């Protein structure tokens, strides 16, 4: 009884969400109390397989689920029902609000969910993007391919992470974007990003965006470059004000938009 009362009180406090139907968007996203509860639930029910940081241990990495196009509603269903024929179990005893709490917490592992006051001018940000980024990155089917596609970046990365990345404060590479230089037995060195590698071969995209595989035995050298191909854009290259605008533009990118014709 006490549990019911507490739950009912909680529902009132939670505001927008009603249990009648599954909302399409997490009603608790960014709610600090929900995130704290979600952390406890995630650790107790999910972390054993997916890892404390959700980057995967026995089960897969789930930090990129939104970036890969999954929706709140779809993830809610996956948690509740599990995935038949796999080890992902159904959670019949998990209340709906607990499921949303888990997702609210998981969001924080993928991107900050702090409520943000919009700042900057997206229109100017788009111009800065076109001037500095489009050569390597792609949005809605237009742009370069050497860097990650950014069509969903606004849903996948927090403002803080975007800022750090652009300023050069984050090192490390996404799989598939590790910078590499390969030198054939004869001919010039080829610079690109590594798409795959095993003991005997390496697959790259070169600076001309040609994808190609190489037998390691045919190479003179395979050099993994320590720094990302993404340059650091200091304030001498992009001012604070322009950075705000750029990030504002990037935040509008929340999924491939077929209506956008570049």
């Amino acid at each position: 009884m006490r549990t019911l009362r507490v739950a009912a009180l909680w529902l009132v406090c939670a505001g927008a969400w009603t249990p009648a139907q599954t909302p399409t968007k997490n009603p608790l996203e960014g709610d600090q109390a929900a995130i704290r509860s979600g952390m406890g639930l995630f650790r107790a029910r999910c972390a054993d397989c997916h890892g404390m940081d959700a980057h995967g241990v026995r089960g897969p990495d789930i930090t990129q689920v939104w970036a890969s196009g999954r929706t709140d509603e779809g993830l809610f269903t996956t948690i509740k029902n599990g995935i038949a024929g796999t080890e992902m179990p159904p959670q019949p005893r998990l209340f709906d609000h607990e499921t949303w709490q888990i997702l609210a917490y998981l969001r924080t592992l993928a991107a900050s969910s702090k409520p943000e006051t919009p700042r900057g001018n997206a229109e100017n940000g788009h111009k800065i993007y076109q001037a500095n980024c489009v050569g390597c990155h792609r949005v809605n089917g237009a742009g370069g391919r050497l860097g990650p596609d950014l069509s969903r970046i606004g849903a996948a990365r927090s403002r803080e992470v975007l800022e750090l990345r652009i300023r050069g404060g984050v090192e490390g590479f996404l799989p598939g974007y590790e910078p590499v230089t390969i030198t054939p037995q004869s001919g010039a060195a080829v610079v690109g990003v590594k798409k795959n590698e095993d003991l005997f071969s390496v697959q790259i995209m070169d600076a001309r965006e040609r994808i190609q595989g190489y037998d390691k035995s045919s190479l003179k050298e395979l050099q993994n470059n320590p720094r990302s191909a993404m340059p650091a854009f200091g304030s001498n290259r992009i001012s604070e004000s322009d950075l705000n605008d750029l990030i504002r533009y990037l935040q509008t990118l929340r999924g491939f938009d077929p209506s956008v014709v570049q």
Partner: protein
Amino acid sequence: MTRLAIPLVILGTALLSAQQTTPPALVTTQEIAEGLPRDGSRWITFGGSYTNQRHSPLTQITPANVKGLVPQWTFQTATLGNFETTPLLRDNILYVTGPQNVAWALDARTGRQIWRYRRELPPDLTACCGLVNRGFAMLGDKLFMVTLDAHLLALDMRTGNIVWDATLEQYKNGYAATIAPIVVKDKVIVGAAGGEFGIRGFIDAYEANTGKRAWRFYTIPAPGEPGNDTWAGDSWKTGGASVWVTGAYDPDLNLLYYGIGNPGPDYHSESRLGDNLYAASLVALDADTGKLRWHYQFTPHDVHDWDATEVPILADLTISGQPRKVLMFANRNGFYYTLDRTNGRIIMAKPFVQTTWAKEIGKDGRPMTEPGHTPDETGEITCPDITGGTNFWPPTFDPSTRTFFVNAREACMTFYSWKPDYKAGERFTGGAGQRYTSTTMPVYGALRAIDPTTGERKWEFKYLRPSTAGLLTTASGLIFSGDNDGYLLALDSRSGSLLWRYQMGANLHGTSAITYMIDGRQHVLVPAGTTLTAWALPQ
């Protein structure tokens, strides 16, 4: 009618005479005890023989000609999930278990299916770590297979139909079964999985003819039994200690040797203070009664999920001039052990990968543990990681060079723990881990050749990423392995040099190749992902 009857009579007579010249002999205990025959006509128990050496006497495929291997056929499972099985071969027929408790009899000449069995599984299974199965055992005209809902089935070898169905335990309470059984005399030996679900583990023996349980050995002693005092309070009731990897058997000593899984909850020390016997141990049981003869605990009070569910290998070695009956064991905790299998005493123990939790084993047989390796809410870094220095994928032993081979992993992890609540049938681990990488502790794998008398490494072959493939060696000096990128590899077992490779499209996760003769040609059979491929030299 008359027209039909005559051919039928002829056919019947032909069949009868065929049976008389090549009678469909039942699988005998003698055959099983003989292990791998020199003529390569069978592979009828999990490790090839009771010793689990997985060392074939066949020599047609050699280091000199292995480059000429060509595929003979590929079989596709058409099921969800991957192989973790060791196929069995007898009388030119393969008997193979797959994921989701599907199983097949295949013509070993062509890979064509003869029959298929599929278990109707309940939707609310609680099996941890893969809906897999590790293989059949056989005796008489029956095959024996455990199921994910914790049953043991006997199937008719000729039809795949069920002969009997024994319940090990209730799957709703967290029990499952994935182990390949072995047959000893007239009994089928199995164990239960569920170490992440608060079970109380056991090893069972069932009468092969009837499915009646002959004995049970609980891997956690009950109150009043020796060892129960190694579990604080009631923690023994939910202490895990599962059994999901096949053991070995010594017919002369009549002892079964099984590695026991982790104590539960996996990571939370205070929930189960004490050594937690016989979790993370090797037990030697009387095969007729299931009574414990001796035990050795590799990891007292394990808090890193280091099941001792690796495959034990038996051999007779001369060490320091003395003939010794040994048991070789590369453990998930990062140590390699050579034990005296008559009494469980350590002959030699040494790390075979980087270990930070303990550097050596003391004279009393206990690891000399380093401080700071008990997980808590803030996390602690330990090497090896949760998957361990090695795991359930089978190692091999070549008696001619006295070399133990194992696919080893170099990896570390941040371990966390907190107090869990037990609910029947739900996960009960009390913690989690997080992969740890740094420039000083790179993650990689290696196939290592170890001298079991000294623990010294003879050679290694490094992989980019840790491999989870099992191994096969042959008397011609070959070792078959796989890397985690899907390559099937053949190496010179004396030097570790790579001789041949083929991209299978999936890694040999937990599976080993087996080898046998068909119509005078040596075949190598490789389960990888959802395929089974047979290789041989060109005709």
